């Protein structure tokens, strides 16, 4: 109770309240703009938050992270263009509902399901906190090393059909993290006698290049377009009542979102597809899925909104980010010398509680904002994409240049901008690079400290959690190769005459 009250007092600071308001409403607008997304906004704002208190900076970024998916549902439902990539599945059922004249119903259901998923995840977090506080201290160097290794493996394997590229890009991320003066023996690594490489390649410079600058270049170069004018009429509150009739789908989808959110490297996409498949298989009207099924819409939105809350679990409890956005947030912790991990739960539980409560409040703010301002948002999102590119490029400059006032940083970020543009055009994953950089650094430090007490290889896994993590890694690899083997065997059989369901991606393989 004392921790809870202390958390409330942290949250009641005016700076936190302002950050919460700006983050949540800003996040909705950013999410609703097709072509921007939370990653771009967080990358741009990251350096600006370094001058704030950690709770203020994190609340602002969490606000954007947690609310962008609410906003992303609006263009997905009304104009068949997902605002953020994770809203792609929402178009399947949301847009057909709009075509039938039920746009307000679809939006209302999406908001209600998103709210349910978001709050469900935070309640799970709060309930799990005492358990986490008990388990987290059991994680020593070797456990954190194995968890980070598991994270990298999962990130690579999660990119089905792009495993080789995900592997090479994750390795590239690990490599980038090693460039510069090595901090223990003070030797230079891959600096090529260049002084600008001696201080290493900053994660934020890479993040800004890969996410923000690449998106700006892409928007400036591609054909200009803007969402058409739309207006929604009807009672937006009705979905709250309708959701009660779909509580089973909402609860199971949110639970899947929480589980997937906790596992590094899986995130929104996997949770959405699992929830959608579950909802379809257990529905009385499975044939309506993809043609305006309220259940499909609820499954997709509840699952993706449960992920941000759950993604905070590995970040806060172990200091291990599961995807790019939490990796960016990790740098806010480090800048303020707040080290996420077991100690955070032991010594700063009030800080953790304040973050959880901020997440709940942001969901309420967003829901209230959306119920009254959907039509206003529909006007805002009509910004032409090329003008959005101009805006992102100008804002990205603030992010890169304010770090160290370095022209070299700007040039490196621009280089990564072009690299990110190529990856986006080729549909190759960017996230493995960021996670490779962060998790590579964690693995290097933790292996060094863990091995000091290890005499034989078996000593490394002689503690229960280390043994469980090691077995998990082996199991995941075995299962993956087993799946590959069966897929390969099936491919050698005569090809079926019926066209593939996913005709856009006929060459997908694990």
């Amino acid at each position, binding site marked *: 109770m004392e921790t809870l009250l202390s958390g409330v007092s942290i949250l009641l600071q005016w700076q936190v309240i302002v950050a919460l308001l700006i983050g949540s409403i800003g996040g909705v607008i950013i999410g609703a703009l097709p072509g921007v997304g939370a990653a771009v906004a967080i990358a741009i704002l990251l350096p600006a938050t370094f001058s704030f208190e950690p709770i203020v900076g994190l609340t602002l970024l969490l606000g954007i992270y947690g609310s962008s998916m609410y906003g992303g549902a609006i263009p997905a439902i009304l104009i068949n263009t997902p605002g953020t990539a994770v809203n792609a599945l929402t178009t399947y059922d949301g847009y057909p509902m709009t075509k039938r004249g039920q746009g307000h119903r679809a939006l209302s259901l999406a908001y209600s399901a998103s709210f349910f998923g978001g709050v469900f995840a935070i309640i799970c977090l709060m309930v799990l906190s005492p358990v986490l506080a008990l388990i987290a201290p059991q994680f020593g160097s070797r456990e954190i090393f194995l968890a980070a290794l598991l994270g990298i493996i999962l990130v690579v394997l999660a990119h089905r059909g792009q495993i*080789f590229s995900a592997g090479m890009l*994750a390795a590239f991320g690990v490599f980038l993290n090693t460039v510069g003066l090595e901090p223990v023996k003070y030797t*230079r690594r891959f600096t090529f006698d260049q002084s600008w490489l001696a201080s290493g390649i900053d994660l934020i410079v890479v993040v800004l290049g890969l996410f923000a600058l690449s998106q700006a270049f892409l928007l400036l170069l591609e054909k200009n377009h803007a969402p058409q004018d739309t207006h929604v009429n009807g009672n937006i509150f009705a979905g709250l009542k309708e959701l009660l009739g779909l509580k089973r789908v909402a609860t199971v989808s949110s639970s899947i979102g929480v589980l997937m959110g906790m596992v590094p490297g899986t995130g929104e996409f996997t949770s959405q597809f699992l929830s959608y498949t579950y909802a379809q298989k257990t529905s009385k009207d499975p044939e309506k899925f993809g043609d305006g099924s309220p259940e499909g819409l609820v499954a997709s939105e509840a699952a993706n909104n449960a992920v941000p809350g759950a993604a905070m679990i590995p970040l806060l409890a172990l200091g291990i980010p599961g995807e790019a956005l939490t990796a960016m947030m990790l740098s806010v912790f480090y800048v303020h010398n707040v080290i996420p991990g077991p100690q955070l739960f032991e010594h700063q539980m009030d800080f953790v509680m304040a973050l959880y409560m901020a997440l709940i409040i942001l969901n309420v703010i967003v829901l209230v904002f959306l119920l009254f301002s959907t039509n206003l948002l529909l006007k805002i999102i009509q910004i032409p994409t090329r003008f959005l590119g*101009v805006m992102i490029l100008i804002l990205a400059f*603030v992010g890169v240049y304010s770090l160290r*006032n370095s022209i070299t940083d700007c040039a490196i970020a621009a280089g990564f901008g072009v690299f990110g543009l190529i990856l986006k055009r080729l549909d190759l994953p960017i996230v493995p690079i960021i996670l490779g950089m962060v998790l590579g650094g964690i693995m290097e430090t933790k292996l*060094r400290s863990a*091995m000091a007490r290890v005499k034989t290889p078996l000593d490394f896994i002689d503690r229960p959690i280390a043994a469980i993590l090691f077995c998990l890694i082996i199991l995941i690899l075995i299962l993956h190769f087993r799946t590959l083997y069966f897929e390969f065997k099936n491919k050698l059989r005569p090809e079926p005459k019926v066209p593939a369901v996913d005709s856009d991606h006929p060459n997908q393989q694990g």
Partner: protein
Amino acid sequence: MIAKTLQDMFKRYRRPGDVVFAVLFMVFSVFLLSQLGEQTQVVKRTKWFAQPGLWPTVAVWCMVLFSFLHWLSSAISDRIDGRWSEVGFWVRSLEYVAYFLIYVLLVPKLGYLPSTMLFAVFLTMRSGFRGSGAIGIAALFGFVVTIVFRGFLQVKIPAGAVYEYLPDSVRAFALTYL
């Protein structure tokens, strides 16, 4: 038969230009591998897990292995048309890189506010919006960004050298907030 088996094993979803990127990344990885001995050091009386070269070695070998497999899967798949027009698209992005770097160089000289407003207006016109409304909005956007980030959030961006020539009454204000 071997070719068919390889194709079945490695076929994947691709877009035009994939093989060019695959080759470039593989060449880059092999180059890094060739530099491993030069660019990392072996420290005496230090165990393998604390050697500075351990993680670069792991990373570069993984890059070489995966980039080879990535190239292989691209090389044995059917050719997709439009490879060089896609490469041309990548090269065209260098134009905006150049504008961005000119803007970066201008900020410490002209000052954040004037350079940002100029850059916003120039890019808007370059993007095809030539109307006075669009130009006005671009200038306003540049102004608001400067005020929010430098004036309000006090983000670390140096004052412009030209601000020194402003009259005394405005100079201090410009040096701090613009």
